[in-house]
């Protein structure tokens, strides 16, 4: 029986490459490469592993973003995904996580008949980890976040996952259809294949806007519909000099350091 996976992915700026203009104190984004978000690559890889095991699996990657996000979809296709869908429309711009999840949930409903939705836990530009669970909520699906290990029964109905916690993990059983969000411990994403790249650039990738999605641009998507707005944004003040720990003995120095680290929840 065919198995249909939808992977939610995002094209993000490589935040390691972002610099602050020392004069204007604003983000310098020119020349910063755009990449497939790391956790999303893990989500796609796990879907591809399922496809390796069950070749009648189909994988559709959905992303929302500017037109150039299509490049990331081509990368996903070249890794082995079957189809890509780009949600791109001025009317979707300025969406917060709530509005974004409305658009993506509408796209997933339009694709339909899915068995599994895989997303990355969070994107490195916003770091919210909210869109995955909010899509699941809008689709009425059960979810497991922070998935570090995945296995599925041969009838493809029962999934067992390891959910990472700060101090260990939970082993959780969940039935399809469901939403899972991946973390980097889950797998190592594969590279694009030469043949995959060749096929990917020839593939038709549809672009859906608010009209195709059938979403209300006043109430469901976009800046106006979003419950949260940016009030102000700014760059943090440069890091000042820290504290020198002083004590009479090495033991006291060690104790004071550990108490400080503990009180700030660093350890």
């Amino acid at each position, binding site marked *: 029986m065919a198995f249909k996976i939808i992977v939610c992915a995002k094209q993000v700026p490589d*935040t390691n490459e*972002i*610099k*602050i203009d020392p004069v204007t104190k604003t*983000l310098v984004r020119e020349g910063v490469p755009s990449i497939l978000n790391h956790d999303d690559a893990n989500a796609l890889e796990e879907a591809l592993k399922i496809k390796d095991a069950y070749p009648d699996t189909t994988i559709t990657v959905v992303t929302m973003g500017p037109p150039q996000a299509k490049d990331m979809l081509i990368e996903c296709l070249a890794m082995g995904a079957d189809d890509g869908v780009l949600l791109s429309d001025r009317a979707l711009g300025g969406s917060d*996580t*709530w509005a974004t999840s409305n658009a993506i949930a509408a796209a997933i409903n339009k694709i*339909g008949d899915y068995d599994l939705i895989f997303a990355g836990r969070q994107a*490195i*530009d916003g*770091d919210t*980890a*909210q869109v995955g*669970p*909010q899509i*699941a*909520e809008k*689709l*009425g699906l*059960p*979810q497991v*976040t922070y998935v570090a290990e995945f296995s599925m029964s041969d009838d493809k109905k029962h999934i067992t996952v390891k959910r*990472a*916690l*700060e*101090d*260990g*993990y*939970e*082993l959780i*059983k*969940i*039935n399809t259809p469901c939403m899972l969000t991946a973390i980097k411990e889950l797998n190592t994403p594969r590279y694009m294949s030469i043949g995959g790249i060749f096929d990917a650039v020839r593939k038709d990738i549809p672009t859906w806007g608010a009209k195709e999605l059938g979403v*209300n641009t006043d109430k469901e998507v976009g800046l106006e519909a979003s*419950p*949260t*707005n*940016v*009030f*102000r*944004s*700014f*760059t*943090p003040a440069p*890091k000042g*000099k*820290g*504290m020198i720990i002083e004590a009479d003995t*090495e033991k006291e*120095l*060690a*104790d004071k*350091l*550990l*108490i400080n680290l*503990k009180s*700030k*929840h*660093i*350890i």
Partner: protein
Amino acid sequence: MAICVINEKCKGCKLCIKACPFDAIYMEGKLAVINEKCTACKQCIAACKFDAIEDTGEEEGPVDLSAYKHVWVYAEQRAGKLMNVALELIGEGRRLAREISDDTKVYAVLIGDGISGLASECFEFGADGVYLIENPLLANFTTDGYTKVLYDAVKAYKPEIVLFGATHIGRDLAPRVAARLSTGLTADCTRLDVKVSSYIDYANKNTTLDTSTLDPASDDKGLKQTRPAFGGNLMATIVCPRTRPQMSTVRPGVMTRRERVPGATGDIVNVNVSLAENDIRTKIVEIVKSAKEIVSLTDADIICSGGRGLGDPSGFELIRKFAAKVGGVVGSSRAAVDAGWIDHSHQVGQTGTTVKPKIYFACGISGAIQHLAGMQTSDIIVAINKDPEAPIFEVADYGIVGDLYKVIPQIIDEWDGADELYEATVH
């Protein structure tokens, strides 16, 4: 209600009832009727073969913001023990409540089974009241179970603000609850303000923000939620002006607990729980506590690096012991690599690996520019060096001037007892 049944078209086939994830449709005679559990998810519209359900786009009218009052803190507990972040948020929630008005209270929301004993701890750390949500099905955290009872409680009691710790559980639960409530949620906040004047104070002290356009006398009492984005390169303050409650997850460790007041008490509200076994669609097989695995330099949460100050190659024996104890990875300066004391793969810096761990221990490292370039964005830098003038102390959050061969063994010895050391200072 935005989703409506068109009575003339409804055939009474019940496909919509099957499709509805929220139990929001029932039959009245041969017609489907949508009740108040509807979240406008539109599953029924997709399922209906007769176009008999439509989205009218009408809302229930603008949200009456004044109907929402008080600050709630999701007091996360695991296995009957409150998380530190819950106590921090009770303290922070109390501060915010008093900024709103003198009669605004902070409530801790306890969800679990047999956890009523935790209420006194919530009171002692500053909660005015406790909402107690207990049921055997809530013994362990499940997304479905906890979302349902918390959503029901918010609907019933209408808090103005709900705060969660940004833990693996808080970040699973909060977005689900916020989406069901169709309200805003801001992730991983590191600063919260109600009064514009306190926001201005914060911004002037800690940021580059030009606050001249803000009016300190403004009567705006909306929650200003400040969080890092773009890997900490940018900060954004988020507001939620039109919907309630205002919801945030807050990073553990950034807010401070109030001093404990032994014997403090408050009101306990027992919340009615409506929850069935089949509401919970995941099954926990087991919960395992374990130490973290050791990973590569770029992925490491903790790095213990040694430099020329070690004196000779055997110094890395101590660094390895240190790393093993704290669950970290061994790094080094270029000087130590150039001296042949350790392999290049351990080198941190411009010509080595760039790292951003949660804690970077720089041991006997002077702090050459090329080394700083590879590690100065670490969350916390601890420097141990004999030379008080070493440049590494300019970027260190914590500096210890001393003999690393004497200090590090002490840290190794005390590491496992850090909890007790800390508890002894706060209780």
